[in-house]
């Protein structure tokens, strides 16, 4: 049709469309938002259970456990990031839409973080309390988790894009992502440990923030390229 009836949607509209759609999808299944949360909580309780209860132990391993639990919760939820889009043909539609694919990938990662990462950050103080962390430690943990989960959503989207269509479950994805996520984990957990010992923590937080920025600028392009390849 040659008459162009309306203005083409701009970039911001494209971004907000996909963010809104993915949040709507999560909203339709409220369980989806809660599941990573529960998982996070459960892993945090499994460790004390398996290693045995001792207050000193707990205080010592608390930051590590919380961070590993957060990492795993994010990894698990990442598996399905592009899977359903691939399977129902939406991915074809996204790739063939006039919007730039990196933008749409960014939108998917943002929605993923809002649905999975943010609630996890918000609930983490509770777990901190159960590991008997101090108020200041909890603040640091919140900050590190904030930047860390954003990075994980973005890094994870690359892995999810690479593995979509391989029907491999989370294992391959984890394998790809863990090496990239390692700096986040190590810095995150170490910084919280340092906070627990009242040592300076700003360096760790700066690192995490910088890593997060880096992921924010580069990951969408990597994800878009990976999607084009996986969807052949």
């Amino acid at each position, binding site marked *: 049709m040659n008459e162009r*009836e309306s203005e083409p949607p701009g970039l911001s509209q494209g971004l907000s*469309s*996909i963010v809104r759609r993915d949040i709507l999808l999560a909203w339709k299944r409220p369980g989806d938002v809660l599941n990573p949360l529960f998982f996070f909580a459960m892993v945090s309780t499994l460790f004390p259970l398996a290693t045995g209860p001792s207050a000193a132990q707990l205080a010592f391993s608390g930051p590590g456990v919380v961070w590993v639990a957060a990492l795993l919760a994010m990894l698990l939820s990442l598996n399905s990031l592009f899977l359903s889009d691939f399977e129902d043909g939406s991915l074809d539609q996204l790739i063939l839409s006039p919007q730039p694919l990196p933008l749409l990938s960014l939108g998917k990662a943002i929605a993923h973080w809002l649905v999975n990462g943010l609630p996890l950050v918000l609930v983490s103080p509770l777990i901190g309390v159960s590991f008997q962390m101090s108020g200041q430690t909890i603040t640091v943990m919140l900050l590190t988790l904030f930047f860390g989960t954003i990075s994980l959503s973005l890094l994870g989207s690359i892995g999810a894009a690479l593995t979509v269509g391989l029907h491999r479950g989370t294992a391959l994805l984890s394998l790809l992502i863990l090496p990239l996520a390692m700096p986040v984990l190590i810095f995150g957990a170490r910084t919280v440990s340092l906070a627990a010992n009242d040592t300076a923590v700003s360096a760790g937080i700066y690192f995490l923030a910088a890593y997060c920025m880096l992921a924010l600028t580069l990951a969408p392009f990597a994800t878009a390229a990976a999607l084009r390849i996986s969807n052949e």
Partner: protein
Amino acid sequence: MTGLLSGHDLTLFRGDHCLFNSLEFALDAGELLVIEGTNGSGKTSLLRAIAGLLEFETGSVIWAGKQVRDHYQAFREDLVWLSHRVGFKADLNLVENLKFEAGLRRGNQALFESVCDRLNIAHLADLPMRSLSAGQQRRVALARMPLTSARLWMMDEPFTNLDTAGRQIVEELIGEHIADGGLCVVASHQALNSSENMRRLLLS
């Protein structure tokens, strides 16, 4: 051979197997290209390759005088795509799905109700897509075409799962689109009403 959309010297491999080589086609505004061939002759692969989802071994596709490969974004603004799979989220209802697409590409939302009525899906607006029957899902997928103002429609087996009335509607939609100056590339096993604007491409 020239046209708004044309392909030159196209060769496509799947695995080790050459589906076709040195294929040429051209299509102008207001024309319909029907790709025919037996099962496995490469219709779907050709469509996907033209749309840029697969890579040709040799050759190039030209849209509006420019190589699609180099001006992919501009090409996508003029394209709307229908494949075997519906391309909509099973958990959302049809209104939510179609509105989402409207946020991605240029279109005319004023037509929304009339298109839904015409495809006889208006009464399904409350159900998530997963609850719809195969044919109903197909109708919703088809609704995306008249709602955009893209000039090039690419459709892979649009008649699948449709009842007689549904097939009739699809033919009408295609007819109107090319009468309006649009282009349409269809792969189908079912004969379309032929008109002087129809070109055929037989893969063997």
